[in-house]
């Protein structure tokens, strides 16, 4: 869906509401505000308390209530030539918890989202295997199954921010990410079914994975990773994958850049070298300041972002208790700690993790705080179990320059103003 931005650039009305709320806050002070008069929502009988609502089956497959119709994926039209080969962004500013509903989980296609029936699905394993095999979808469901939750982040997430603060909203700066619980079979199970004796020493072997769509997106993955934790997933968050996420089956490559998570997977080839396909040479390589480029930069570095308050999710309630929240993740393992700064990185306080970090999955953090209407330069900083600390943009630029496009995991700054509005800025 090519959606023009329909979200919070706060409307005039939202702005008014915000103003009213903060005025009330000023009058009432920090304590619970006294009501000016009886609330008609309480004293008057409401329609919904008298008549009946929808019966069951009113919507056989339920959709979000209309009041939430701005919680949608959005794209940035100037980024790409055509929506067929393009990307959009998950509305992370409006979500909570860690699981991304499939319907608003970002999409990235190279030749559009195809409609591939389960009956027409074939998965081939060939190359250096004992017996090249072909599986049907039905075959996949007969292998021992696993359930795992992982984030998928596009390598280009935050890529527009290398040269400076560009896009005004967490959805746009950090929304090329989603986090789902996958059900499927391990890639290891399938490779073992075909047999790896023919491959000899596995240490220098690769698997090349390829999708069934017209882009033929293919990536080379070291055998070690293939055998460690990769999955062929056919369900996400309990239900079939959406077509935009690779129905009926996709590859899951935990912690590694999203492009490797080949959708509509049709072929797995065991090889003795990387194929050096288009998406692992001309794209998804990171050019450094001196013009040389890093390749095989698969793992996604530890990263975090405050999702609220943020430009699309301003503070509307005025002074007093404020929940600062955001997401953190690392391709190297579990998030162990997230710090938040309100002053642009001078001082930090440690946020509360909603749940202990899970390896290569999104972690939700909260900082329950008090806001007195002061301006803030809000930042968050993630740390993972390997001891890696999310760097500042300056630290990244020092090593990588500004032309990397991919793998920008810098600390993000939101300038929260006295009126509660927030803006994407860079600070000294």
């Amino acid at each position, binding site marked *: 869906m090519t959606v023009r*931005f*329909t979200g919070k650039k706060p*409307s*005039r*009305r939202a702005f008014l509401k915000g103003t009213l709320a903060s005025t009330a806050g000023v009058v009432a002070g920090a304590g619970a505000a006294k009501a000016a008069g009886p609330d008609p929502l309480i004293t008057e009988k409401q329609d919904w308390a008298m*008549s009946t*609502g*929808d019966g069951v089956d*009113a919507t056989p497959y339920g959709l979000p209530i209309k009041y939430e119709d701005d919680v949608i994926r959005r794209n*940035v039209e100037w980024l790409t*030539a055509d929506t067929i080969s393009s990307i959009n962004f998950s509305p992370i500013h409006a979500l909570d918890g860690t699981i991304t509903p499939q319907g608003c989980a970002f999409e990235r296609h190279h030749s559009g989202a195809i409609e591939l029936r389960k009956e027409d699905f074939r998965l081939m394993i*060939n*190359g250096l295997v004992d017996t090249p*095999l*072909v599986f049907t979808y039905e*075959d996949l469901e007969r*292998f021992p199954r696993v359930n795992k939750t992982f984030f998928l982040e596009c390598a280009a997430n935050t890529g527009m921010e290398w040269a*400076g603060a*560009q*896009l005004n*909203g967490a959805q746009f700066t950090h929304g090329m990410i989603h986090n789902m619980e996958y059900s499927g079979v391990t890639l*290891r199970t399938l490779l*073992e*079914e075909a047999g790896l004796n023919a491959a000899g020493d*596995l240490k220098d072997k690769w698997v090349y994975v390829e999708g069934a769509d017209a*882009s*033929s997106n293919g990536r080379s993955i*070291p055998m*070690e990773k293939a*055998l*460690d934790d990769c999955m062929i997933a056919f369900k996400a968050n309990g239900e079939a994958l959406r077509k935009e996420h690779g129905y009926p089956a996709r590859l899951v490559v935990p912690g590694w850049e999203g492009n490797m998570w080949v959708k509509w997977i049709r*072929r797995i080839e065991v090889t003795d*070298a990387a*194929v*050096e*396909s*288009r998406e692992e*040479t*001309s794209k998804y390589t990171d*050019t450094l300041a001196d013009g040389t480029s*890093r390749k*095989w930069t698969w*793992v996604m*570095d530890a990263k975090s972002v405050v999702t609220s308050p943020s430009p699309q999710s301003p503070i509307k309630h005025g002074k007093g208790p404020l929940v600062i929240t955001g997401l953190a993740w690392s391709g190297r393992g579990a998030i162990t700690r997230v710090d938040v*700064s309100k002053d*642009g990185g*001078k001082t*930090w306080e440690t946020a509360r993790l909603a749940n202990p970090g899970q390896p290569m999955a999104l972690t939700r953090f909260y900082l329950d705080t008090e806001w007195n209407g002061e301006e803030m*330069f809000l930042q968050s900083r993630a*740390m993972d179990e*390997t001891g*890696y600390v999310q760097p500042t943009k300056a630290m990244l630029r020092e*090593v990588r320059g500004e*032309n990397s496009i991919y793998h920008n995991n810098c600390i993000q700054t939101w300038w929260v103003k006295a009126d509660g509005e927030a*803006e*994407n*800025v*860079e*600070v*000294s």
Partner: protein
Amino acid sequence: MSKYRNLLIGSALAAMAASPALAEKLGLGRPALPEEIAAWNLDIHPDGTGLPVGSGSVEDGEAVFVENCAVCHGEFAEGSGNWPKLAGGEGTLADKDPLKTVGSYWPYLSTVYDYVRRSMPFGAAQTMSDDDVYAITAYILYSNYLVEDDFVLSNENFLDVEMPNADGFIVDDRDTAEAHFWTEPCMENCKEGEVKITMRAAVLDVTPEEEGAEEAAAEEAPAEAAAPAEEAKAEEPAEEPVVAAAALDTELVKKGEKVFKKCKACHQVGEGAANKTGPMLNGVVGGPIGAVEGFKYSKGMAELGEAGETWNEENLTAFLTKPKSFIKKTKMGFAGLKKEDDINAVAEYLKSVSQ
């Protein structure tokens, strides 16, 4: 290779060796046939593995390129709009805005052949002959000044072509080049001096704007303010005689369908509609009151029917506005529809499903 990866390699491979499940096969799937492998196993490696036998000239390539590729990539592979530029950019990789093309960036020619053959042209992938792909590849080389205009590329001389940026890549070295990112984070006095804004997204202003922001604002406007306009609209069709209103107002029908959700718990309409808690409502608008077969009406409702009353506009509006005022002991336990245009909409919807 990274520390992490070495660690991973060790554990994954060790686990594999230790795993008794290794030898256990389930016997699922079937052997792939040679023809099937040949049909899909098309990837081409930097060393030429996978290249088909064939050839194509720069001259032929120009014609094929103009026909199939130029619409997006420009006649000279210089690119068009946001589509990829395939030529130029030599020596720009260390510039502020590097131009990455086949000539300036791509390390292997095999990638060009592989990608064009399997993924291009956009919207008609895998429609070109192997020779045409050789020709296009030759033409892209030519447009990057890497071969002469009489050059013919084939599987024989493929590896002789030198790609300018072949040595421009290093394997991921973050573990060493960025080793200082593994550190103990600072918590206090982490910056000297005042923190100042150095760049603002709002000043750059490239974030997509909300399309139809005005409409959205209007929708959000308080319902009271919007109501008069809606009412005025709703009154128009009502002025016409009901009989003549056979041509339905589709907008109103749509709206009515929404309003009817409030009624659905008890009333069915449309094909196969049956009496539930309330009577089915097909054909009810304009028809006699209390006349749906098989439904046991309240005494008051039945009497109105016997008196020859029909569900004309007046009765329907009165009933739906305040059911219990219209018929004191009606069985309908519904409070009524407050807005006249909701009533009109429901009436229109009921007419539509009765047709």
